[in-house]
């Protein structure tokens, strides 16, 4: 069977120009921010694919494009073999889209405060005109809450419980793929563990596939089967989890792993990384990482490296071995 998600040469531009009149008066050119730049990757069925990166890496944008909240500027996305941009059969697209759900970062903003929990959970079904009798109760129990909670409102729940409700809502659609955008970054550590465990259990029970978007390497290391590292909208390394954490190939990945605080790093003296993430409207020429890269050579400033198979994964670096 083919992979569940196939992303090919994905590009997404945002127009971040000043308003038209200001542009004319101040003689400024149009400003285009390329949030996603020629990204390709596949997600195998029933696996967890993690996208990691710092702010401006385009990880959330990719997630939104895959669930259909944003259209891509260029490139193709096939989910379950269907490309929504080129599929003539509308019914097929609709059926495919039901199977993609999303869990958001902020458990407070992702539930409508005026809706009862039961209605919130049933929305994937009712929004499409279906009946959802008893579904919410069943799902609430499945995510570790009480079926009687259907008549409560979101404000009666803690952050962790709300994220469980979001998970229940995603499950209501009987999804194949769940895009999780920083699902635990708003939660406390002890609660985060509960939610991550629940997600692992549900994945086994329902045969789910996760696209896991996170900036937190420790969570990625715990959850992911495959990890893709993004920098400034470009995929720069992709490898199975063990390979990536044991033997990172790209200098940026190395730096990220080195910079992340370690629980057993008592008194560790880290050589702090050089520089900051560049302005994404004017990205560096060649390899986007070259101004901060400790091993950059002349070629890196002129030519953009493509992803190439090296070892167990793919990496976009001329100097990686």
């Amino acid at each position: 069977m083919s992979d569940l998600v196939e992303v090919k040469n994905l590009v997404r531009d945002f127009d971040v120009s000043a308003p038209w009149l200001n542009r004319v008066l101040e003689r400024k050119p149009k400003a285009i921010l390329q949030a996603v730049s020629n990204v390709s990757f596949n997600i195998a069925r029933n696996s967890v694919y993690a996208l990691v990166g710092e702010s401006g890496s385009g990880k959330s944008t990719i997630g939104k494009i895959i669930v259909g909240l944003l259209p891509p500027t260029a490139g193709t996305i096939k989910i379950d073999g269907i490309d929504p941009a080129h599929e003539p059969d509308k019914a097929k697209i609709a059926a495919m889209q039901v199977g993609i759900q999303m869990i958001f970062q902020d458990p407070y903003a992702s539930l409508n405060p005026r809706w009862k929990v039961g209605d919130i959970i049933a929305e994937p079904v009712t929004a499409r005109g279906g009946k959802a009798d008893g579904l919410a109760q069943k799902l609430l129990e499945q995510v570790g809450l009480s079926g009687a909670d259907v008549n409560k409102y979101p404000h009666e729940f803690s952050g962790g419980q709300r994220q469980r409700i979001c998970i229940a809502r995603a499950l209501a659609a009987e999804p194949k793929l769940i895009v999780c955008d920083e699902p635990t970054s708003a939660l406390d550590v002890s609660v985060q563990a509960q939610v991550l465990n629940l997600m692992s259990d549900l994945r086994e029970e329902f045969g789910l596939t996760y696209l896991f978007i996170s900036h937190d390497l420790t969570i990625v290391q715990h959850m992911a089967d495959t990890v893709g590292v993004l920098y400034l909208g470009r995929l720069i390394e992709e490898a199975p989890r063990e390979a990536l954490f044991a033997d990172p190939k790209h200098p940026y990945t190395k730096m990220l792993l080195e910079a992340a605080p370690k629980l057993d790093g008592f008194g560790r003296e880290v050589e702090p990384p050089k520089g900051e993430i560049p302005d994404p409207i004017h990205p560096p020429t060649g390899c986007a990482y070259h101004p901060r890269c400790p091993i950059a050579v002349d070629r890196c400033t002129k030519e953009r490296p493509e992803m190439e198979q090296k070892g167990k994964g793919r990496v976009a670096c001329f100097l990686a071995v």
Partner: protein
Amino acid sequence: MTDTVLKVVNLTVKIPTRQGVLRPVDKLSLEIAKGKILGVVGESGAGKSMTGNAVIGLLDPPAHISGGEIWLNGKRIDTLTREPMRAVRGKQIGMVFQDPLTSLNPLLPIGDQLTETMLEHLDISASEAEKRAIAALEEVGIPGAAERIKSYPHEFSGGMRQRVVIALALCAEPSLVVADEPTTALDVSVQAQIIALLKRLCAERGTAIMLITHDMGVIAETADDVAVMYAGRMAELGPVRDVLTRPTHPYTQGLMASTPLAAKGGKRLNQIPGAMPRLTELPAGCAFHPRCPIAKDKCRADPAPTLGAGDGRAACWFAGEAGP
């Protein structure tokens, strides 16, 4: 100890509300010595920020200190009135918050903000202050400091802004810096830069730091001692290596076991059941007992023992009884 910079004894903060009087900080005691970093960790609502605000005298009313003492360099500061406390805050205590914009005036160039602070608290001339401002910015790693002193806060990136805040916090040469989640809003690579900077500057000047954060990794790499707070009370206090590798309070044990790193990939995480109670719904006895795996009748009846500074490590009747 003669080089104790900050000493907090039995600090209690109360907030009168409709639901009764809440105690976000309850009989908290801690000490920080010169040049040392004390990490204060806890989950949201544990009272760690409230403790920091009490120390710098910036509690939002109706919250107020209702008991205990705060000593800074041998002088009691919790009884000071507003004006003398303001002088102490600028001169002897520096502050770094999560959002650098709250500490910077958006309408003033950063150079003016630095020189103003120095002129107010140090006995130096204006030209000397400007020289020092440039030096301070260079020290925190702002490239082209001599030109950038004329820039406004919004012209800096988040990481650079936090560097400016650190320069501002340290420019009056305080003996204590209270840093409340200084790197939470920053990316991993920038976080590493800021932490390294804080550590270096304080080691060089012998400044004591109270580092408030929820990130155990940051604590492990930065702090000398760590205070773990739960529901307004001190749960465990001790040298960072001991607390993190051999925790004795069941809460700290659960917390350490529930961090993804501890599971080392693939395995299930250990989880503490439930969530921290709201201050309005604190259980009787030890606040942790409903979630505690080793809770006994005594825990349900009696509040956990209060930790004094320098006492034993964990505020638990049965500390160390559950294996780590």
